[in-house]
């Protein structure tokens, strides 16, 4: 019964399922320990806060994970977040137009990243570093260093409002997560991403559209980063030039903790989202326990090392 639940020993799917259960177990353990240390932790209010805080990272990590699956890395996500928010809200008064414009910008930047990596054979690190800096320049040129700061109410509602008690941002994230999960696990494009990451040479010889695969991964990452940027400015309440700062590394960390391999071909949406939740929970715990904020970095670093060693041991088995 349990063996069935675990998806069979020695199978690829079984290994993936066990990794997700491991992450879920880890999340439950840290929540339980924190609850014992500080009963304030396990309240509906606090858990909802954690979920809302984790949501923007959740969008970004799904995209980052997909890029990592195709042996890439997207350093431009944080810059996309800020630029999409600053430009779209600055240029368009209409909220819906601004939203669509932000998504288009994310897709465009992702497309450029993907083009550079697939057609021009630039390493993902350099390609996305370059777009990150270019976007930063455009953003600062547009705002002349000081963005307006004001934000349409609709964005506030999207990020902090709720429908029947469930925060809007979570509804959107769960929807996006479902689609991404289905795409990766059960659709042709998702399978192509995973196979390409496993062995790009074989993918080419097996007739897969290798360039399209790579470009689509970066486009997905760009679009999700743009969405994350809008929700984050909505949550924070001001449009800032540095919105999303640090999300590029946090998202890479969460993707890896969530089971994505930097060698490509491996990753899951559920794992990535759980890892994002674990990261944000730990940040929250650091605050709840009254530790200084610098501890968040220590926690993050330790967690990455932990994940790396656990996964390496598991691959060796």
């Amino acid at each position, binding site marked *: 019964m349990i063996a069935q639940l675990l998806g069979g020993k020695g199978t690829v799917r*079984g290994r993936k399922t066990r990794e997700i259960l491991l992450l879920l177990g880890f999340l439950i353990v840290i929540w339980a320990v924190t609850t014992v240390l500080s009963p304030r932790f396990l309240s509906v209010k606090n858990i909802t806060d954690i979920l809302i805080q984790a949501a923007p990272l959740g969008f970004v990590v799904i995209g980052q994970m997909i890029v990592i699956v195709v042996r890439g890395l997207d350093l431009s996500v944080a810059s996309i977040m800020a630029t999409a928010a600053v430009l779209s809200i600055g240029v368009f008064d209409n909220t819906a137009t601004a939203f669509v414009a932000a998504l288009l910008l994310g897709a465009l930047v992702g497309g450029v990243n993907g083009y550079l990596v697939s057609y021009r054979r630039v390493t993902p690190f350099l390609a996305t570093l370059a777009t990150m800096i270019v976007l930063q320049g455009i953003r600062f040129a547009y705002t002349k260093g000081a963005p307006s700061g004001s934000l349409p109410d609709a964005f506030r509602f999207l990020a902090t409002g709720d429908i029947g008690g469930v925060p809007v941002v979570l509804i959107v994230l769960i929807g996006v997560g479902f689609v991404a999960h289905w795409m990766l696990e059960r659709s042709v494009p998702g399978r192509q991403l995973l196979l390409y990451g496993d062995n790009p040479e*074989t993918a080419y010889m097996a007739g897969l559209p290798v360039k399209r695969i790579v470009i689509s991964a970066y486009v997905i990452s760009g679009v999700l980063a743009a969405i994350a940027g809008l929700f984050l400015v909505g949550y924070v309440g001001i449009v800032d030039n540095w919105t999303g700062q640090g999300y590029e590394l946090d998202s890479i960390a969460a993707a890896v903790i969530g089971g994505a391999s930097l060698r490509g071909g491996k990753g899951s949406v559920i794992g990535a989202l759980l890892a994002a939740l674990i990261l944000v929970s730990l940040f929250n715990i650091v605050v709840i326990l009254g530790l200084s904020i610098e501890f968040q970095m220590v926690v993050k670093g330790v967690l990455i090392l932990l994940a790396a060693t656990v996964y390496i041991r598991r691959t060796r088995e």
Partner: protein
Amino acid sequence: MADPVLAARGMTKLFGSNEVLRNIDFEVIAGRNIALCGENGAGKSTLIKLMTGIYTPSAGHVLLDGEPVIFAGPKEAIAAGIAVVHQEFSTISALTVAENVFLEKEPRDRLGLVDRRRLRRDCADLLQQLGIDLDPDTPLERLSVAEAQMVEIAKALRSRARVLILDEPTAVLSHREIDHLFRILRDLRNQGMGLVYVSHRLDEIFEVCTDICVLKDGDVTSAGPIEDYDHDRVVAAMVGRRLGELFPPKSGPATGAAPVLSLRDLKVEGSAASVDLDLRPGEIVGLSGLVGSGRTELALAIFGAARGAGTVALSGANYRKRTPGRSLAGGLAMLTEDRKANGLFPDASVAWNFAASTLGKGARALALSPRDEEERSRSVVERFSVVVDHVGQPISALSGGNQQKVLIGRLLENAPKILLLDEPTRGVDVATKAEIYRTLRRLARDGVAILVISSELIEVVGLCDRVHVMRDGAFVAELLGDAITEDGIMAVAAAATGGGMRPSHD
């Protein structure tokens, strides 16, 4: 005959209740080279590991110079003068030749530091002794696979060895490199070393070995001096049936039908010569020639994975802007030579590997059906008797031969009209080879046109209706019917060797 240097007596090995070897006697004699043959799983590697201290026997013992010994581990066997070159390389690519050869045995100066001058000199001496032309200071990553193999042999022989065991040493070598390896082996033999040569490539065994021992399912089925054997007798001992039975009857070259694949003046990048070819439905055409003669490059150029100038036409229609994806869509499929580099998705499951070229070919174009994939791949597993517990296992958990079967299954799933097969039975055991040959012939009868590239002459001779011999990128001869013989092919292929011959991997 002289007394054996190393011998196994009554060697038996059980893994659990599974008897892998039964009461085996095996002798290595100084100045002789004994071939150890058998199908995958016959027990060759187990026997080697028992004699070199990696496994301990369940019954029986090892004799060194007639005295029973127990090697507590591989190090003791090495100390006793038994050198082994395993299939997998143990060299480190960041180090130089000399550093690799004397790894962990570097000559030290008085301070205990590596004496680099002596290291270089010792290595140069050893390489010269072995007739290996390599600079001790070259980093290993700059060497070809064949040269790395030479380093591996030098490493095995750095301390005075009396017995050298080579486990499938030629799997990655080209013909010319194999010749070089064989020269070295003959020299060692003449110097009085006892050699064991593990391989299932019969051509090589007959070329370099003096004795043969055939294992089948853990028993010695036949053993003796090589002069008493021919191909047929060895295969019969390996699989229990005759070689001729491996190949289905030929149908003869097709002449009536219009060609499905036509090449005109096709010139592979880097080659001066060009090629014309018509491939008709129902025929199996062999592409023979030494490694480096341009066979693989030609197939890649047709398939669209390498550049080529000239015309390729599919059923008369000019096929420009070739890519693997377009080729597959047009019914042209290719099996590549190098499974690891571009045949496998190593971490993906058997089912995923199997379905990779036919994603979305079902009713729903976007959604996958894992159950359908599993069912289809299970049918291939049954048809080719692939040894696997579950099609959800990663393909890297399978042996090379079983991986190859899955890849052939993937290829046929496309229902191709034209098949380009580069070394289709590499690493596959004889029983499965027979199954693959039967499948190919059946496909041909159903109207598929097949182009086979193979280094195993026996395969080309047994399987093909028509053979083109290649040299330096050009077709130098076409053989038909009874004219297709090993000698006939070799005579044309090897003529004027050295005229621009290149190893395949540069």
